[in-house]
């Protein structure tokens, strides 16, 4: 029984972190069809922002939840204006350019802060389930994932900006014909996607080794989740995070963490083979 609870918490943890990590990528890919290969580095920047702000005396919660998304969101806006906006509709070029960007960001951070950095401690401490231990932070991550989900849903479904963004995603020329500047919508959307990715980086900073190349550990998982989830941003990312989080944690429990990842990738390839439009392309057609 205790073991079952711990396993369930592990799966919850895996799902929540995966969702937080992917939602920004899903927004940027879903809305603009930009494959952002610098996604992992956005996570890394969020983690660095958190660690640096915390070490400078800022409260750790403020660093994670406010400083990290704000900083990475602004960096995202800058990058969109200088680079990404020339790449809409050019899939291959966008991959090359963002790959270059990821190398640039890694190089920059390495030059400034060196190869490693002391992390921040995990706040909140732990609790006992029978003979096992778990941390409150896991539950906090789950709460954050639910909040982000609610926020993105509300933004897309309940606000005027969300309506305009969905229309632009569907048919940018027609939206422009009604007086919307698609360029501006893309810019804001990219900033939001980057900001949410920075938030993920901030929230995972206490759990990760802080290095300039830490993004590489996340990026493959993020991409299979977004592709596996399909075109609808919230429901797709959520179901794919749940499914892959479950497979990853159970695989890791039954074998070893390394095989857990292998099993995850194999099942993702299988899933994409049988559902080329992603889970949401099959089950949630027309939602977002």
């Amino acid at each position, binding site marked *: 029984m205790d073991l079952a609870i711990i396993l369930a918490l592990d799966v919850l943890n895996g799902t929540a972190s995966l969702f937080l990590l992917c939602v920004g990528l899903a927004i940027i890919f879903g809305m603009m069809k930009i494959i952002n290969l610098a996604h992992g580095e956005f996570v890394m920047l969020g983690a660095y922002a958190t660690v640096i702000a915390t070490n400078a005396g800022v409260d750790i919660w403020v660093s994670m939840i406010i400083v990290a998304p704000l900083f990475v969101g602004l960096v995202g806006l800058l990058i969109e204006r200088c680079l990404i906006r020339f790449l809409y509709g050019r899939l291959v070029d966008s991959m090359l350019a963002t790959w270059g960007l990821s190398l640039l960001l890694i190089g920059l951070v390495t030059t400034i802060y060196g190869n490693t950095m002391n992390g921040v401690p995990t706040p909140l401490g732990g609790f006992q389930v029978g003979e096992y231990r778990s941390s409150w932070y896991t539950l906090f991550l789950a709460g954050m994932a639910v909040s982000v989900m609610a926020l993105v849903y509300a933004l897309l479904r309940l606000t005027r900006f969300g309506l305009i963004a969905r229309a632009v995603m*569907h048919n940018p020329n*027609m939206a422009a*014909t*009604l007086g919307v500047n698609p360029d501006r919508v893309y810019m804001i959307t990219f900033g939001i996607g980057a900001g949410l990715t920075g938030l993920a980086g901030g929230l995972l900073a206490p759990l990760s080794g802080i290095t300039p190349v830490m993004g590489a550990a996340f990026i493959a998982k993020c991409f299979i989740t977004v592709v596996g989830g399909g075109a609808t941003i919230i429901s797709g990312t959520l179901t794919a995070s749940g499914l892959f989080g479950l497979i990853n944690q159970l695989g890791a429990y039954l074998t070893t963490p390394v095989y857990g990842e292998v099993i995850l990738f194999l099942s993702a390839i299988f899933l994409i083979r049988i559902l080329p439009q992603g889970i949401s392309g099959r089950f949630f057609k027309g939602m977002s």
Partner: protein
Amino acid sequence: MMNVLEVQGLRANYGPVPILTGIEFDVGEGEYLGILGHNGMGKTTLLKALMGYLPAMNGAVRFLGSDVTRLPIHARARLGLGLVPQGREIFATLTVRENLRMGLAAARKEDSRIIDDLLTDFPRLVRLLNRPGGALSGGEQQLLALARCLCANPKLILLDEPTEGIQPSIIEEIIETLLALRKRRSLSMIVVEQNLEFIASLSDRVLSIQKGRITGEVSREDLLAGRVGLAVP
């Protein structure tokens, strides 16, 4: 009287292929202008070039006195140019109400009274408001596309083959609505068509287009008699 639109020597290409080869015409204030032409003569291309979908290779477009030849689509829309495209381009996953709200997207504040007002002219849409736009029939989509365009309160509407695949009763409805609207708003229109009856009952003046050029005016008598003088290509 000022012209709403003045087009001079407009040329436009698809890639290397010239499609519009020197278009010249004006639209007067409050005028409903018809443009008649066979398939592939460049009607849609003309409206797209006026709206800014494809760049002018040459020539000039003046709208309400300002030069819009190089403006992007959304800037022309904000000046008061509206397009109801061929194929309607309804946002399929948005509801009918959301499609209409998109007509207000350029307004600083969204005023739902504008939509309610407009719905009195489009009673058919009222019970469809919460349906996804993609789930409407072709005729209903045409009405929605027109209503969505009108939400933005355009000064000049570009209407591209609204009768394509539409039953006569809805065609009647569209004609009546457009004739009623011009009495209440300062509205001009370019309607591009192959349906002679439709164009005759709506237009003050009819031009013919052939191979990317305006070839002349079609008189009312010829139009009603079906002698439109268009060379079959």
